[in-house]
């Protein structure tokens, strides 16, 4: 069945051959309904196992027990069965949307089949490994077959940028602030759609967590699978190389007005006199991001819960270093293996307001949780969680 699914997709997309792959990242183990569980169990019953290294994206259940969710009993049972079935197929129980920070970093130029939109964008753009956007089912089918249809971003000639996204009019203080990269990602995703762009005009070199935030937001507002940053990402030593030494189809000069508009779009509410919760960690927080959280929180007690979503790879280190207990004593709810927009962890509350520094949470929270969203910097998120109301523009 796995090979039939891979072959049918190849036909659909006009690929005339299959490529061997070195690894996979599987987004398919998140419960959306019983049909996905039944599909995974059908593969298990057929004796399938993965042929290559396959890490798992988040599931619907926090198996570490750090957080609780309110899935009804039937859904809880089916979601647990689904996570179990993917382990039986031989996948690694990483349960994170940031596998690239959990030791799964395919080498430059390698062929892989990755799912989950932010993981795909990071894998292609920051690591320079080659993957298309693998959706649920195709990701596991390719991992079992050890092969993927040869088309799209697997082919080097399709990886060049055609659009220049010039940010030279933006000031450096903004570009090094933590709101800049989700905001730019939102704008980039909407103007680029599924094209490939190269970001130029930077006088700083964005570090990994900024690129992670940019890719995740761009992949939620557009269908971005690959972006280049001139002078930073591996296939873009400079603008001309990223463009394949051809003239760009379009040159977008980003203005401060475009940035202000994008930042406004990330919030769905304004002028609130309270917040009900704060959520950070989409994509999952790195250890460095937890260090920043702890440094800003300074052991203070929160007035509203702050949900900090991460993977086991980070949770184990927080526990080892004795930081988990301190965070939880402050009122931080650590969420591992899953996150607050994919499964019901936030209490159901009509008219509730969520503050977040994640462009991806900002995009998906209104539809998936019912909460309105206020987008803010990490510093403002923490001060607001302490105050229980929006505190905007505090010390950076």
């Amino acid at each position, binding site marked *: 069945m796995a090979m039939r699914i891979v072959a049918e*997709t190849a036909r*659909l997309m006009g690929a005339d051959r299959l490529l061997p792959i070195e690894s996979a990242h599987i987004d398919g183990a*998140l419960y*959306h*309904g019983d049909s996905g569980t039944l599909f995974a169990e059908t593969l298990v019953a057929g004796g399938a196992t993965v042929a290559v290294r396959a890490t798992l994206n988040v599931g619907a259940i926090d198996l570490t027990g750090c957080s609780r969710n309110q899935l009804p009993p039937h859904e809880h049972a089916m979601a647990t069965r689904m996570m179990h079935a993917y382990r039986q197929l031989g996948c690694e129980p990483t349960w994170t949307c940031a596998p690239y920070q959990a030791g799964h970093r395919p080498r430059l130029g390698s062929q892989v089949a990755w799912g989950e939109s932010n993981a795909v964008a990071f894998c292609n753009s920051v690591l320079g490994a080659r993957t298309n956007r693998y959706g649920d089912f195709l990701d596991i089918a390719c991992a079992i077959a050890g092969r993927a249809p040869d088309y799209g971003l697997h082919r080097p000639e399709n990886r060049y940028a055609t659009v220049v996204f010039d940010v030279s009019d933006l000031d450096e203080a903004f570009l090094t602030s933590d709101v800049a990269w989700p905001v730019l990602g939102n704008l980039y995703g909407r103007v680029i759609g599924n094209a490939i762009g190269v970001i130029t005009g930077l006088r700083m070199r964005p570090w990994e967590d900024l690129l992670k935030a940019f890719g995740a937001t761009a992949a*939620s507002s557009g*269908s971005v699978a690959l972006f280049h940053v001139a002078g930073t990402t591996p296939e873009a030593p400079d603008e001309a190389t990223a463009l394949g030494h051809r003239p760009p189809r379009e040159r977008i000069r980003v203005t401060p007005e475009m940035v202000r508009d994008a930042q406004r779009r990330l919030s769905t509410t304004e002028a609130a006199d309270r917040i009900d919760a704060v959520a950070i960690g989409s994509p999952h927080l790195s250890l460095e991001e937890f260090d920043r959280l702890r440094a800003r929180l300074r052991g203070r007690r929160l007035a509203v819960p702050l949900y900090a979503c991460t993977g086991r790879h980070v949770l184990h280190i927080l526990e080892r270093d004795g930081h988990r207990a301190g965070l939880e004593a402050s009122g931080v709810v650590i969420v591992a293996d899953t996150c607050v927009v994919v499964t019901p962890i936030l209490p159901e509350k009509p008219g509730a307001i969520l503050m977040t520094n994640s462009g991806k949470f900002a*995009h*998906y929270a209104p539809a*998936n949780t019912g909460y309105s969203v206020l987008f803010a910097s990490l510093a403002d998120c923490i001060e607001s969680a302490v105050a229980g109301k929006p505190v905007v523009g505090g010390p950076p």
Partner: protein
Amino acid sequence: MTIEADVLLPGRAVEARAMALTAPISFWGGVNPRTAEIADARHPEYGQRINGRVLLIPATIGSSSAAAILLELVHAGLAPAAIVLHEPDAILLLGLIVAREMGHPTPLALRLDASHFAALHGQQLVISETGSIAAKTG
């Protein structure tokens, strides 16, 4: 007038009303799998139901879990009557490929240039297995 579309994935001939989306959509986070309603508050067709419609999709965006939502819609009997895409999208159509593997009847998936979508919107369409699209008059 008949328009010929390319068949991406086979399905049964149908007659149903067309609904043209006027903005790209992410099925995950954009469509509620239990009600078939468009759930993205920022989408222009927010709140409308896609089940039983000939759904004309100009582009897909966002999450790679679109296939799971589409499979769930098929499984729950809430799928569109047919899906017409401006360009083939492996992520979304996987939902139909897997639905077929799991033994469910699946809607026809077609490719048609999005320039036709506005004129087809709201029309009662008769679509053949080979991808001929005709608007019913009267």
